């Protein structure tokens, strides 16, 4: 597929029609991406293709690795030198990257990883899905850690979150995953790209640059003694507490007076919005909360809303993963129902509306507050 020539050449701030994958790639480049390593996989490939031209044109590092295993370890090396670095993949590739992601977490390196999720398990299919929720929020590799996870629901948000991802990664020395479903990667819509930022040549004081006129620096994830390891584990946990405190992000609609709160992220959240609007037109008091960070999960706000809402309906493009986080957030205060499609099938607004009406009816019949 040819690289979209308009992007990058057209440096104006006006809106232009952009495909999600290309928008993320171009936004990363403009945010000062210094090095990209990746391996082709649908539905993410345009991202890699776009950077194969743009990065080289800008005199930056682009390398197509021999596998996702190699790609993430190249990212590990580049991040060790303090460079702004990114990789991207889709579900099966993210599985292969988990080894490196764990080492990166164990070395406290800021990196950005894009997962344009597809249907699974196994080779699955190349349709849009959200089946990697547990993988990215819970088990991004062995050991005790969580990446920050951002979930865009539009091309514009994909752009904004890409820029944000680098800032968060560097602020916390922490891994950030952009969890976009295949729909976000593949669709085109008008969006505005950020201005071109030059590469930041200043290196942080932990970066490997050669021990010239200073003591040596080491990047490692080894802590041999139990005490040392636990101290490091605690350091990660303390940072996650700080991240939870500062970085919960979400969008909400009609939450002032809602009886039923619909919760969905990414494409599911976007379609849920249409369903919520339709429900409102029918006079149902339905609100929407769309998590923008999957980790940290916006549980403070959800728990707050649970105080004056009678029930939740979680919508996902999987068998029900985020629904666990919603249950934790509401802590049994209100019933939580679930509507999901699997197989890479994107739910239609009408299906969600039906689920809303069902849940709403049960709520108003059985559990008046």
């Amino acid at each position, binding site marked *: 597929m040819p690289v979209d020539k308009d992007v990058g050449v057209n440096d104006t701030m006006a809106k232009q029609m952009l495909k999600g994958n290309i928008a993320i790639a171009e936004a990363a480049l403009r945010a000062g991406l210094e090095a990209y*390593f990746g391996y082709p996989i649908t539905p993410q490939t345009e991202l890699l293709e776009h950077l194969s031209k743009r990065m080289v044109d800008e005199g930056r590092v682009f390398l197509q690795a021999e596998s996702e295993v190699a790609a993430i370890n190249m990212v590990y090396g*580049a991040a060790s030198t303090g460079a702004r670095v990114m990789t991207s993949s889709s579900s099966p590739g993210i599985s292969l990257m988990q080894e490196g992601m764990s080492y990166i977490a164990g070395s406290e390196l800021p990196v950005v990883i894009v997962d344009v999720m597809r249907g699974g398990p196994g080779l699955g299919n190349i349709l849009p899905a959200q089946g990697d929720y547990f993988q990215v929020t819970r088990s991004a590799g062995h050991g005790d850690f969580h990446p920050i996870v951002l979930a865009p629901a539009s091309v514009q948000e994909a752009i904004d979150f890409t820029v944000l991802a680098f800032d968060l990664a560097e602020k916390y020395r922490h891994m950030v995953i952009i969890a976009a479903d295949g729909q976000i990667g593949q669709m085109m819509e008008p969006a505005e790209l950020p201005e071109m930022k030059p590469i930041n040549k200043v290196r942080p004081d932990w970066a*490997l640059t050669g021990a010239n006129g200073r003591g*040596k620096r080491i990047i*490692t994830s080894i802590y041999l003694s139990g005490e040392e390891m636990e101290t490091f584990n605690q350091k990660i946990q303390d940072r996650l507490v700080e991240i939870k405190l500062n970085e919960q992000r979400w969008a909400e609609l009609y939450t002032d007076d809602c009886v039923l709160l619909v919760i969905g992220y990414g494409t599911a959240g976007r379609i849920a919005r249409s369903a919520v609007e339709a429900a409102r037109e029918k006079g149902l008091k339905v609100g929407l909360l769309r998590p923008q960070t999957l980790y940290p999960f916006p549980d403070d706000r959800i728990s707050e809303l649970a105080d004056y809402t009678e029930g939740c309906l979680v919508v996902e493009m999987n068998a029900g993963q985020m629904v666990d986080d919603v249950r934790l957030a509401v802590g049994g205060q209100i019933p939580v129902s679930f509507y999901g499609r699997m197989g890479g099938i994107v739910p239609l607004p009408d299906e969600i509306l039906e689920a809303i009406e069902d849940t709403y009816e049960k709520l108003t019949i059985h559990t008046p507050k």
Partner: protein
Amino acid sequence: MTIQAPEGMELIYSRPESLAEMHTHYCPGCTHGIAHRLLGEALDELGMRERTILVAPVGCSVFAYNYFDTDACEAAHGRAPAMATGVKRTRPDNIVVTYQGDGDLAAIGTAEIIHAAARGEQITTIFINNAIYGMTGGQMAPTTLPGQKTRSSPDGRDVEIAGFPIRMSEVLATLPGAAYIVRRSMHDVKNIRKAKKAIITALKVQEAGLGFSMVELLSSCPTNWGIQPNEALQWIEEHMVPYYPLEDYKVIEAVKNL
């Protein structure tokens, strides 16, 4: 602590500056220590210490990042060439060296080393071939000789079951991106001298940007071979050298002019 020569005497031997002032954890008689010393001396002689970024492996030399007084990082098992690629591509003016054992390089990390060499990655690899998995207690390596007893080939490597050992230098030499691939040994003084010369050449190849360079070093593991250190050196000469000839497998023209 800097060692000083007594009055009226000349100091002819001391710790290379590129090696950190600390004890290693290597077993007595293990040639990992010699390999460290050779690399340290080579970096000193070429004035590269301040520019070097070492990529340590998983294996007995996992703590190599402590033992060299250079910037260093610690790769996942077998991934040192990929990590080194990320380092080198973002720091092209640094000297990037991977130090890897045979399990690391010739088993779990085969894809990474082959592709680093194929790309002509401007890095230098020191490949320690001791025909065994040292760190995990002496299991069969991809380089374990036919008939060689290990903890996971207790009756000797049966090639019907485990296949034949891999000669990595020969394999990598077939790749156009490789500029300098040689095998040396550390079983006696003469060979140790040759090994050091090869390491110096390999680093010069990287400095000149000629492509991927690797020095394979036949190494001993007295602990897991279950023999005395001196016998282990003899074992290298008698058993390893015949299977792993000490030759230059790839020396491109430009290397000869260095």
